[in-house]
């Protein structure tokens, strides 16, 4: 299932700032998956933050500053892949809105947009691969991150990748497509509502009797994992990239 050498393509890694700083294992797993698929991961060291947090908080001037930097860093790449649905949605869908009064930058944003992919979208839709050859004996609950599912329309792709892992089975997870209550600064500004939502999410995970909770967005992961650590430290949540990379390592051991 690896691409043969002649097809070897360069894949530019778009590493969200949360991944860079807080959850670097997700970035390393993403790079490992790209290599596993026979592509060459490229990492631009100048990359910083896509501007999502500033934009969502209403600080568009500051978001534009970060967005211009992002465009300058990435606009010459053919394929850009990120393990974060919300950051990808920011670049693909919000940049054009952000530059509605700056036609030159808007043009550059629109030219960049089709080359940016969420990780599972890149693997399944762009490369046409579903089975990565991993193995993991686990019942898996999949949390549908809002940006990934509702903004980008990516739902079947990550589930196809999980289902193809030998030994892994997706379980029924009640309210899988309901928000976990993260919402960036929402989680800090509206802690009561946010806590009620993450409690509901985690209770459904426990009821599902799954061994693992997997998702495509580092934001949701920080929220769910942080809550689990406080209330249910024995329970595990992880990013799709980590799950897939681990299952491939597992398979290669046997």
């Amino acid at each position, binding site marked *: 299932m690896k691409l043969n050498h002649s097809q070897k393509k360069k894949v530019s890694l778009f*590493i969200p700032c949360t991944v*860079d*700083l*807080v*959850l*670097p294992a997700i*970035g*390393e797993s993403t*790079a490992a998956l790209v290599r596993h698929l026979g592509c060459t991961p490229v*990492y631009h*060291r*100048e990359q*910083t*933050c896509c*501007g999502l*947090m*500033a934009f*969502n*908080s*209403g*600080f*568009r001037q*500051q*978001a534009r*500053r*970060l967005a*211009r*930097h992002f465009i300058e860093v990435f606009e010459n790449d053919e394929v850009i892949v990120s393990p974060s649905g919300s950051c990808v949605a920011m670049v693909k869908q919000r940049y054009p*809105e952000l530059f509605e009064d700056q036609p030159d930058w808007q043009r550059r944003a629109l030219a960049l947009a089709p080359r940016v992919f969420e990780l599972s979208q890149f693997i399944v839709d762009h490369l046409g691969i579903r089975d990565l050859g991993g193995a993991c004996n686990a019942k898996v609950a999949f949390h549908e991150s*809002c940006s990934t599912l*509702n*903004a980008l329309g990516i739902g079947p792709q990550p589930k196809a990748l999980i289902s193809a892992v030998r030994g892994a089975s997706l379980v029924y997870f009640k309210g899988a497509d*309901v*928000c976990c*209550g*993260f*919402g*960036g*600064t*929402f*989680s*800090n*500004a*509206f*802690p*009561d*509502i*946010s*806590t*009620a*939502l*993450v*409690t509901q999410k985690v209770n459904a995970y426990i009821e599902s009797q799954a061994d693992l909770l997997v998702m495509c967005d580092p934001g949701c992961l*920080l*929220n769910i994992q*942080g*809550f689990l*650590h*406080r*209330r249910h430290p024995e329970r595990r949540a992880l990013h799709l990239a980590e799950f897939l990379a681990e299952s491939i390592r597992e398979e290669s051991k046997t």
Partner: protein
Amino acid sequence: MKLTTRQFKQTARAELNDARTQKFLQILPQRLSALRQAAYQSFTDADATHRFGHAIREEVIQRLPELLEDFEKNALANGAQIFWARDSAAANHYIASLAKAKGARYVTKGKSMVTEELGLNEALALEGIEAWETDLGEFIAQLLGKPPFHIVGPAINIAVEQIRDIFLQKGVLREPTLDPVALGKAARQFLRSKFRDLQMGITGVNMAVAATGTVINVENEGNIRLNKSSPRTLVCVMSLEKVVPTLTDALHMLRVLCRSATGQKAGAYLSFDSGPRRPGEIDGPEELHIVILDNGRSAMYADPHTREALRCIRCGACLNTCPVYGQVGGYPYGWAYSGPMGQVLTPALQGLTDTGDLVRACTLCHRCKIICPAGIDHPSLLLYYRHQDVQKNPRLGGRGAALGEWLGHTLFSLAGTRYGYWRLFTKLARLAANRQRRGDWIHGISAYTQGWFQSRDLPALPEKSFHERWEESKKAEDKR
């Protein structure tokens, strides 16, 4: 209606701790969502039907002035009288004066969000005119002095014991009972007496057809039809965006409205009224007055961003699918319109001064946008309002940013434009955060982040960022 949106967080907290609210939120939104989902299956092509509805509402908001002029012309030709109300005060004054002129001591009302917006009942009371809500849920909410909990079920969260007690207290019920059917019958008998010899009835409007001058109402209880057919004078109040170009368009919007609101293919009663009673007709009002309410909508129309919210047809589908509404219910939104519908309408009509929390009480999950039969992009609008608030937009009453927040975002964005700055920033951030670490986790950082740490921990920031790990492995590779 009094705006209490400023207390969003306090009311939300109270509702999160209210057992009854929580019980009904476990049932009502999911049930209505499931009904809508099932009802949409009856369309041959649900997607195309959905998009056609968006196109109709798109046409409405782009041709609004022209459509309203057409509607006025045709309604006048049908014999209706039109009053253009600039604001709530003008609308209330017109209706109260009319009631007095007609010698009405009381009026009856059909459930309508626009008269909630006007605060019409209170305004009429000041003039000594009683207003009786005739929708059962709205009647209960009125007796209790509560705002609507849900646009479709205004009193769905009220305990049956509480309904019994208030009915006994207000003389609606003689013998105490908890039988819902008996309670419904008591309310019906009580209200029927109001419909007899009725001078004036007041309803809202679901749609106003420009091409024919027709006003359309949708309901399930029959009370709106009684309101429209019993009185000598009928007043229909519409917010100006309720206009649609043609009857064909109205019929399409009815198909999606009824399915979106209650999962019905059509409401039990659909009333189409073109003008008052004509010579030779046996029923209908002698006079029909149509109040077209602006109340800030012209300004909303003038801004191409806020104009988008005028697409709304008040079906309530967004409430049922919203995760935040699903936790806190309708009260925190603090005005006539709750849920995502309220979050896009209230800031434009009432300004941002009191609605700063309202436009931020959203995780941007996009469920409302996906379900909306009118094609509103709620997340984009909420992001626009947040920006206008930070920008101190004078027309919208934006408040400007807190200095600390502005400084944080500005420094962060400046750091994010240069490689060296960013590396320095990430090192400092790590140092600062990790000062609070206990083992591999952080349980609290500062007062500013206490919301997060109320229920969550944060992993301690790793010694090496992804960037540093990558650079090291690159160096190691180069040596080899």
